[in-house]
C-alpha cells in the first residue's frame, strides 16, 4: 500500500537502526510524545533494534489518558438523563470514571453512541430535535479543528440541542511543563506528527531555544520513528539543539491554516487539568463566550463533581516518562486491559496498554 509499505520496509528500518548504532557514542534519553508513536515502537519492537544506550520514554500524548476524571464523570452523569444522547469517540467508552464508565452507563439504558467524527453528532442533533445531543470533545490539536467545526456548524444552523463537553489539550505547554520539572530526564523529543500537521512546526521553536533541547517532528510508521531517533541522536552527539521535521510528507512549517482559523474562531486558550499530571497553565482550549450556548459545562447544571483519586497506579510517572509501565507493581496483575486501573491501560494509544498487548512475553521472562 502506497505511503505505508515503504515506511514499514524492514530493510529500510534495519538500515536506519544500523546508522543509529554508528552515530551513538553515549546514552541518550528520548521521548516520543504521541501514544500512536509508542504503539508503533511496541508493535514493531523498535526498541529491540536500538543500541542499548538509547532509551525511549513514552510521553503524555494519549488523548484518552490525559482527559481529567471530572470530564469522564460529567459525561457519565449526563448520559443517563432521559433527553440526552451522549456521543463519543469509541476509545472513551471504557475509560473508568470514579464509579462507572460509559459502557456501563449504556448497558443501564443511557443513550451513548460512538462516532468517528463530531459532525456525525451534529447530524444526530439535527435528526433528533427533541433530544439534547452532547459530544464528548476531547483530544489534542488533532481533534480540535473537527470539534470546533461541529460547534461552528451547529451555531450556523441555529441548532439549540447540541453541545460539546470539552477537554482539549495542547502539546507545547506540556513539553514546557515536563522540561521545568526537577526530575526531567528527557534530552530530546519526537514531536507528534499529526498534531504538527494541524499546527505546523513553528510552535516548537521557542521550546528548542528556551531549553536547548532538540525536537524532531516525527511520523508514525517504523521508518519514521527510527529516522526521527537518528536525527535526534546526530544533533545530541554534535551538541546541537535544532527543530527538524522528519514528517515532511504531512507537516509544513505553517501547518493547516484554515484548521487553525476555525480553532481560533471557536476556542480560546485556557488553563487545563491533565489526568495523571495535574493542572498546566495555558495548556488547553475552552469554548469562547460566543459559543457559550454550545458548552455542555454551561448548558447543563452539573454542579461540582468532586473527584477522589486514590494513588493506586503510577500513571503520572508513566505519562511523564519517569517510569516504564512495567515498573508499576499493578501492571499485568491488578491492572489489565480487562480491568484497567489507569487510563494508560484503557486506550489503544496508552503506554500501559501498548506494553500489555505487545510485551507481556518480555515481562514474563
Amino acid at each position: 500500500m502506497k505511503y505505508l509499505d515503504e515506511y514499514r520496509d524492514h530493510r529500510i528500518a534495519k538500515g536506519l537502526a544500523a546508522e543509529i548504532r554508528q552515530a551513538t557514542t553515549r546514552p541518550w534519553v528520548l521521548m516520543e510524545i504521541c501514544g500512536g508513536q509508542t504503539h508503533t515502537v511496541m508493535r514493531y519492537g523498535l526498541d529491540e533494534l536500538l543500541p542499548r544506550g538509547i532509551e525511549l520514554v513514552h510521553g503524555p500524548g494519549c488523548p484518552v489518558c490525559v482527559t481529567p476524571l471530572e470530564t469522564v464523570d460529567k459525561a457519565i452523569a449526563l448520559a443517563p438523563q432521559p433527553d440526552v444522547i451522549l456521543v463519543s469517540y469509541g476509545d472513551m467508552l471504557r475509560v473508568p470514571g470514579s464509579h462507572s464508565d460509559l459502557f456501563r452507563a449504556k448497558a443501564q439504558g443511557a443513550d451513548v453512541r460512538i462516532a468517528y467524527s463530531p459532525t456525525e453528532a451534529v447530524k444526530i442533533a439535527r435528526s433528533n430535535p427533541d433530544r439534547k445531543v452532547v459530544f464528548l470533545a476531547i483530544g489534542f490539536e488533532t481533534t480540535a479543528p473537527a470539534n470546533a467545526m461541529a460547534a461552528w456548524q451547529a451555531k450556523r444552523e441555529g441548532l439549540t440541542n447540541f453541545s460539546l463537553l470539552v477537554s482539549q489539550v495542547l502539546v507545547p505547554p506540556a513539553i514546557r511543563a515536563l522540561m521545568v520539572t526537577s526530575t526531567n530526564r528527557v534530552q530530546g523529543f519526537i514531536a507528534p506528527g499529526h498534531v504538527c500537521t494541524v499546527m505546523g512546526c513553528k510552535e516548537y521553536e521557542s521550546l528548542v531555544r528556551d531549553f536547548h533541547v532538540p525536537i524532531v517532528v516525527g511520523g508514525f510508521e517504523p521508518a519514521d520513528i527510527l529516522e526521527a531517533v537518528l536525527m535526534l541522536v546526530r544533533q545530541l552527539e554534535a551538541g546541537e539543539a535544532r527543530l527538524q521535521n522528519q514528517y515532511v510528507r504531512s507537516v509544513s512549517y505553517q501547518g493547516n491554516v484554515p484548521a487553525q482559523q476555525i480553532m481560533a474562531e471557536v476556542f480560546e486558550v485556557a488553563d487545563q487539568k491533565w489526568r495523571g499530571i495535574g493542572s498546566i497553565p495555558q495548556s488547553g482550549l475552552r469554548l469562547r463566550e460566543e459559543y457559550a450556548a454550545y458548552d455542555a459545562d454551561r448548558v447543563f447544571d452539573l454542579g461540582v463533581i468532586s473527584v477522589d483519586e486514590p494513588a493506586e497506579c503510577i500513571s503520572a510517572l508513566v505519562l511523564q516518562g519517569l517510569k516504564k509501565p512495567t515498573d508499576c507493581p499493578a501492571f499485568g496483575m491488578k491492572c489489565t486491559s480487562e480491568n484497567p486501573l489507569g487510563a494508560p491501560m484503557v486506550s489503544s494509544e496508552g503506554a500501559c496498554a501498548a506494553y500489555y498487548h505487545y510485551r507481556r512475553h518480555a515481562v514474563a521472562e
Partner: protein
Amino acid sequence: MSAKASAEINFELSCPAPLPAKDTILLGHGSGGKLSAELIRDVFLPAFQNPVLERLDDQAIVNVNGQRLAITTDSFVVQPLFFPGGNIGSLAVHGTINDLAMGGATPLFLSAAFIIEEGFSIDELRRVVNSLRQAAADAGVPVVTGDTKVVEKGKGDGLFINTTGIGLVPEGIDLSADRACAGDKVILSGAIGDHGIAILAQRDGLEFETQIQSDSAALHTLVAEIMGVSSGIRCMRDPTRGGVSSTLNEIAERSQVGIELEETSIPIQDQVRGACELLGLDPLYVANEGKLIAIVAPGAADAIVETMRRNPLGREAQIIGTVNNDRAGLVTMRTAFGTTRVVDMLAGDQLPRIC
C-alpha cells in the same frame, strides 16, 4: 511564558478507582474476547457442568448408539441484516454448518428459529428466508424444523435468527482445541477480516465506499477434502467474532502451548488493510465467516495447504505459524522486523481510535 518565568508544575499522582463488581452485561460480553470467556466460565459452565460441554469446542460431540453425533447452536443478531456478500439468512446457515464442520462432522440437518420484531416488513423477511433456503440447498443441508416468535416493537432489533445443526463425526476423527502439540503447524485457509470490514462499512455513521464482500461461506466441503488427504489434523476453528487472534489464544490456552505467528505470511486483502488503517483496527481481531484455522501435525501441513488451495474457498491458504512449548497460553508474532510481540486476546470489542 518563558522557561525561566514558569513555575515548576506540581505533578500530582492521580489514578481512577477500580470499577465496581461486574454486575451488568456489557456489549463486550458478546465480543468473543476475554469478557465472553469469563461469562462462560463464571455463569454457564458451573450451571451446566458436564464433560461434553467442558471441552468448550464449537460443537458438542456425543455418543448415540455407537454413532458420534455433533450438535451445535448459534444465534445471529447481525446489523445491518443485508450486507455485501450475504445477509443474516445465509450467515445463519454458514455459521452453524461451519461450527459442525470444525469438529470434523458431516452436517446433516438444520433448524431455524426466527425472533421477529413487531412492524418488521414481511417482504424483507421473505428475502431473508429465501436466502437462508438457498444457502441450505447449496450446502446440501436441509432445514427440517423451526420456530417463530414475534416480540413487541422496541423489544427486538428487527430480526434475530437461531439455527441448530446436527451432524455425524466419521470414525477415526477426533478434533479438539486441546490437541495442539509443539511443532504443529498453524494453517489459515485465506485472507482475513473481509466479513468484519464489509459489515462495518455499512454501519450507521460510518458508511464508507468499498468493494469488500463478506467471506460468508459453508466450509464443510473444504473440511471433507482436507480430512480426506491427511489424518494429521489436530483441531480446526473458524475465526469468527474476535478474529484469528481470539481463536488462537483459545487454542493455546486449551492445549497449554505457545503459538508463534509469522506476520508476513498472514494473507490480507489490501482493501481490508486500508480500511483497518483508517479505522485504527487490527485485522487479527476482525471477524471472518468463511475461513478456518487448522492446527496440523508438521508432516501433514504441506499436503493440507496444497489440497486447500485447489478449492476456491482455500485458494489463499497459508501456513501462518508454529506451535511451541515456550509459554503456555501465549500467542506471539514474529514481525517483519525480526522482533517479537504478543498477540493478545481482547477484553471486549475493538474500539475505534480517536486519532
